[in-house]
């Protein structure tokens, strides 16, 4: 990542619901718990959240229902006005934008996909996708051309003239995705886009989504309540509970070093070797002996299990995808992760 200014950066943002949130905001203790605030008659949907999202990064916000993740993404897109704190989008303060600037921002830079698709029932697939372009007042012909391009992108050729009602759930969400991509946004919000779909379709859509992301390289905020989905897709995961981000890190680090008890509980039943990559478990190179055949840092420990069992070196070199040496993997640590440590077994 060459450019280091974050695309979205939020500092201590709050979203309170209640009788008079603004004045309450001034008096509230920044470390107050959800229950303490509720006792005062306010619901803290988002509480003191600070995050930075880099260009081209996919941040997955994960949490159970009611954890505030949907509200957080609505704060980032300003569908909901925050009560306190500051959100900068490409350096500009989101809360200070007026109506016109906000509309401009959404027309040119932001796209959003919704859980229940939120398609307009009276418009065809093509017209739904062209909708944001029409709203910008673009020429009809151009709108259609661009919409057709996006339709190809999401593999819906031949369905242009269908109405949403005539499509399956998966197809409807493809329309939703296409609509959000029509204006070529830089920032892409997805609010539980696959939660309303059947498990098989969900899997297929995730693959499709990864393919798209590889092609487009957008900055993405992805909301989900499904931990497996988060693990599959995310560069970094932010886990939320009661409006607070409990931990925000890569999957490897969350699994290896859970920050709070809540997260410990969360990852308790997860097969860690399936998640953790060699690069995540590897130690920086010190003066150990790092000779011999190296392993791929992007492989999970589970994928490497056979090799790890058969290899007899204490330390195994780990290389990045491009073949650059990035660290050494302590074989015992990896085996402990695979089979449980001796202590763990005797417990």
């Amino acid at each position, binding site marked *: 990542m060459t450019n280091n200014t974050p695309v979205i950066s939020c500092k201590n943002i709050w979203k309170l619901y209640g009788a008079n949130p603004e004045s309450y905001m001034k008096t509230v203790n920044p470390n107050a718990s959800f229950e303490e605030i509720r006792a005062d008659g306010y619901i803290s949907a988002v509480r003191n959240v600070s995050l930075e999202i880099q260009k081209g990064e996919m941040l997955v916000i994960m949490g159970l229902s009611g954890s505030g993740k949907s509200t957080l993404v609505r704060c980032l897109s300003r569908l909901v006005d925050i009560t306190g704190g500051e959100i900068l989008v490409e350096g500009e303060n989101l809360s200070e934008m007026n109506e016109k600037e906000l509309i*401009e921002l*959404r027309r040119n830079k932001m796209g959003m996909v*919704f859980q229940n698709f*939120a398609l*307009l029932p009276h418009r065809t697939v093509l017209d739904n996708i062209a909708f*944001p372009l029409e709203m910008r007042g673009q020429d009809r012909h151009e709108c259609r051309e661009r919409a057709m391009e996006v339709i190809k992108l999401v593999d819906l050729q031949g369905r242009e003239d269908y109405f949403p*009602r*005539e499509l399956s759930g998966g197809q409807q969400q493809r329309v939703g995705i296409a609509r959000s991509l029509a204006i070529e946004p830089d920032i892409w919000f997805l609010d539980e886009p696959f939660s309303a779909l059947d498990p098989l379709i969900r899997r297929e859509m995730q693959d499709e989504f990864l393919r798209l992301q590889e092609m487009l390289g957008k900055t993405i905020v992805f909301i989900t309540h499904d931990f497996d989905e988060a693990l599959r897709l995310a560069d970094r995961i932010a886990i939320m509970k009661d409006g607070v981000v409990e931990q925000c890190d890569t999957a490897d680090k969350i699994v290896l070093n859970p920050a709070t008890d809540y997260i410990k509980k969360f990852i308790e039943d997860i097969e860690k070797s399936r998640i953790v990559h060699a690069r995540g478990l590897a130690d920086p190179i010190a003066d150990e002996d790092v000779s011999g055949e190296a392993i791929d840092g992007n492989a999970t420990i589970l994928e490497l299990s056979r090799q790890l069992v058969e290899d007899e070196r204490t330390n195994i070199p780990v290389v990045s995808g491009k073949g650059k040496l990035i660290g050494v993997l302590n074989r015992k640590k990896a085996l402990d992760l695979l089979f449980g440590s001796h202590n763990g077994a005797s417990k």
Partner: protein
Amino acid sequence: MNAFNLSSSNGLLVKKSFNLGTVLWMLALALVILKFISWTMGAGLPVWLSKPPNFLVWPFADWINAFFNFISEDLGLKSLTRLFASGVEWFLDITANLLYGKSRWPRIGPIPWTVIAVTAFMAGYALRGWKLGILAGGTFVWVAVMGQWKWTMETMSVIVVAAPLAIVMGLLLGILAWRYKNFENILSPILNLAQTYPHFAYMVPVIVFIGVGPKAGAIVTIIFAVPPMVRMSLLGMKKVPKEVIESGQMSGCTKRQLLWSVRVPTARTEILIGVNQVIMQCLAMVVLASFIGMPGLGQKLLQLLQALKIGRSFEIGVTIVLLAITLDRCSKAWAEKQPEHFERGTSWAVRNKMLLIWLGLMAVAFILAYFIPIAHEIKRTQAFSIAKYLDDWLDLFVRFVQPAADWLRAFLIVNILIPLREFYLWLPFWSVLAFFGFLGWRVGKLYSCLVCLAYVGLIGMSSWWDRSMITAYTVSFSVFVCCLIGLPLGIWASANEKRALKVLLICDTAQTFPSFIYLIPVVMLFGVNDVAVIGAVVVSGMVPMARYTIEGLRGVPTQMLEAGQMSGATTMQSLWNIKLPLAVPTIMIGLNQTVMFSLFMMIIAAFIGTQGLGQELQRSLSAADVGKGTVLGLCVAFMGLMIDHMITRWSKERKAALGVE
């Protein structure tokens, strides 16, 4: 569950301390006993105890008249309304010229009946299929063949103007109410009142402001049809999913784009249901507007009914029913019609097949009409009428049932109606007031108690207490009969699915008829008197009772029935112990509608008998007395609102307690 626990744990307390409810109940009872005792001793209660005391009867009518005079003359509202009326008249002249050749601009009418019938057929065909097409086209063929073309077109020319105006006004008001919460708060009590305000009461101020005739008929129709449209568009706007709006915002919609490109189209179904209701209300009102000189089917029916020409009025009745069904089915089909796509590369001709067929058929019809006069217009002398045969048949039928009908009429009047009426009039005012206060207390504690006291109290203050009691007696007796017939009918119909659907279809259809229609058969059977009125009320009021009974019984969750079966309940046991208790809240909503229908019907039917509020309302109509008309209308509306308040509240709480939707 909580509610039960609370009331049982408070049970002791309630018994010890006096609450308002018991006090009112005892008061009501004590007064009745007191009056009874004094009556047996040959004396009466002092007048201020048994009737609303004089100092409480305020001259509302005079105040309203003064107010109306002030705004219409001094503030010049009259010229404003007349301006609006002349705008409406301009539209009316166009449709009148096109539909029945009134000699006004653009002077190209009348359109041949064949063209209109073909157009109606195509509308039905395009909306639902050939069955609806035949119904719609057939209706107009019937009208033409029966020689009722001109009257029907007089009626249609008003609907064609009034409905679109009411739709636009209703939609705009609905959007405003959705946009500005304050406006909604002002509007919603008015809308509630409008639902229970009798038809005739709308007409009185219109006479004053506009006068009589088609123009006034059109305007009263518009006013009458706007409220349901406001309601439905408000509901539709509120029902648009939040996500859809957010998706619009994220697509960069401005506020205006969000309203017209996202909210309104997404609320399409509700808005179109509103359109359906507007059209039906228009038809109902336009028929009744004959009382203020609106020509057309209603006027004809009124004349024929008053002249007891049963066969002819039956023909017109059929026309009105056919029109009602056609308009209802077509507009519902429109609301339900979902967009469908054409395959890519479909040619223009195929995409616009309907349009082309319509144009083709119209061309044929025009050519036919040009060369063959009868395809252009069927004159009265050429028309076909079955009135004579109908009269013969009906005579035969009536002669056959006459003894039974006469006996029933005499029995009802002597043994039930007169005693009941005397009893209602005998009841002391204060005891009726206290009794409704008590009912209110039972339903919704202090709030409902005050609501009921206020409504009954205001009726008492109106100087129409006795009239109101007469209306109350006829309505309550009719509602009782409605339940007696409607409930068993509903239970019988819901026994199997097929039958239930059939009866529901009949109920749905019957509910679309303008209430006027129900008078035809009862006048035929009983002549012009009280019993006929009650008959008409019963026939129209039974429909919602049966309908909601069926829906309530059908709505009982299957699991509960299965649980009952597995507990070994017989069919009867499961009906009494599972189905009916769970269906009661829904049945009560039916009862509520029955009361409303009965009230409306009572007022409409007043011109063939009864001495209740309806009769006075019609007098105020002919005297163009706004104050009196408004007060009487409000008396009717307050009765309706009070019953509505109690039943709705009770039913809602009961549903919540039962945990059924």
